């Protein structure tokens, strides 16, 4: 006799998202720099900000910070970085 199993896996599938279009050049673009609040993240992003402005002529840099690296970014932070053309995130220590 065939055995019938009840599926124990998650069956609520997430909608696939399309990746944002990639930038051909950085000149004139606004770049968001997201610090996830790990120690040292600001050191890395300060340097990136400097390079973006000096070498790549970006229109502006938007600095945002997650209140904690241990949780997803709150909606307010996401809303603010949404206006940028690209985001660079400093992940680790």
């Amino acid at each position, binding site marked *: *006799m*065939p*055995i*019938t*199993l*009840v*599926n*124990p*896996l*998650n*069956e*609520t599938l*997430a909608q696939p998202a399309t990746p944002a279009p990639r930038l051909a050049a950085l000149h004139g673009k606004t770049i968001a720099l997201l610090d996830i609040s790990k*120690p040292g993240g600001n050191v890395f992003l300060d340097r990136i900000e400097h390079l973006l402005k000096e070498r790549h002529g970006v229109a502006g840099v938007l600095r945002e910070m997650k*209140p*904690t690296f*241990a*949780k*997803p970014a709150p909606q307010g932070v996401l809303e603010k970085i949404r206006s940028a053309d690209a985001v660079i995130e400093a992940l680790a220590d």
Partner: protein
Amino acid sequence: MLRLMAFLQTDCPTCRLIAPYLNTLSNGGARVTGVSQDGELATQEFAHQMDTRFPIQRDPDFELSRRFDVLTVPTLYIVDEHDRIVRQEPGFDKNALNEIAALFGCPPVAGPYDGAPASKPGCTSRHLEAQTADAPAAALDFQSTRGAKASTIELADSEDPYEYCYRAFGDALPVVPPTRERIEKMLRATDLNPRQVIARIPPCYGEATVEKIAANAVMAGCVPEMMRVLIPLVRAVSDERFNAHGVQATTHFAAPLIVVNGPVRHELVFHCRQNVFSNVVRANSTLGRALQLILLNLGGARPDAIDMSALGNPGKFSYCIAENEEENPWAPLHVDAGLAREQSAVSLLAAEAPHGVSEHNARTARGVLKSIGYALATVWNYRFCMAFEALVVLGPEHVRTIHRDGFSKSDVRQFLFENTGVPLRCYREEEPGEGMQQRPLYKEITIDGEPCYQKFRAPESIKIVVAGGTAGKFSAVLGSWSTGARGSQMVTYPI
């Protein structure tokens, strides 16, 4: 004379959060009345589970809710003898609770490190929910709590069901095939609708319907009666304070440790003695394993993908202990969390593996606790202070020595807090290292004449449980993951 009216809903997490604080206010002499916006049965269950020490009246037609213009629950109203509202406080807020306590001449009721967040918004008042729908509130169809029916898989006769399940559903160990018959038996042990969504499990937020929980419980080898523990456990692990999203995805060692308290230990034969962290009985092993399978299969934190732990934790097979309340001369863990002793409960802590503390020669409480303090001092990293908690699992022999010297549980916590630190000389090296940057936040204390930084933020950062066998002078220290509102907080749920 002032009185306090608390508008509540039985399924609102913030209302459950605030209930023990209202109990404390009521016990302290404040005139507290609860106003439930839910039905009689749900209100009775809420009162029983939360061990409420204040009367709760119902508001069947939302007459009171409308009169007070309640927007969210919980909302606390302080009313004077002329029925005038002198203060109203929506949601949960520790500062507000302490100010309200002062109004009633009570001491502060909400400490900063009791595991609860400083504040938390509530839910929309039921009578306003009704205004946004066509149906009256009592007939609201909670669509969002109704999940899809699980699909079924028919195996060919030639297929070995154990091999199939091992490939398709398990972790690295075989599982019991979740046949329809076994699931039905499991579902008969609960009154809940199989399609009811109990929680959405982080980090992928899969719907944990009663049926899906039952399927994973079958695979773990649980007896049907375990459903009554699994339902609150699934709620607890999805509690935002526990932050399973972070716990399951971190590179750190943390795994959810389950601590079982109360009469359910005897009713379902949980083990709390010799070899408590090991493979002794079915209840501990299968409950821990069921939680792990639920986190894996519904939460999606696969150890080869989203679960990024660098070294992992053997507790990810199963990590469940019960407290040895019979050998505990003090209040057990769930009573510390504000529940009644006779209330069964599960607590969850994002914990590292146990670190053993052997101390066979100390004859005093001080001697035993000094040994434990030195183990506590190296939790996370020897120079990092203040950012985490620890669970101390005291073995019964150590408990006897400590208790004989007249120490209460809070004395134990206070002693460990005051005598656990890192000598200042450890910070003189030029070499940068973890815990150096945060030095401006640390507090300097003196331990045995030596200047030290205090290891923990508060005595409450040190959680205490009694467990293990009565032969052998051992205890264990378990470090936590990042804690507080920025990390994962211990949660305790009534069963």
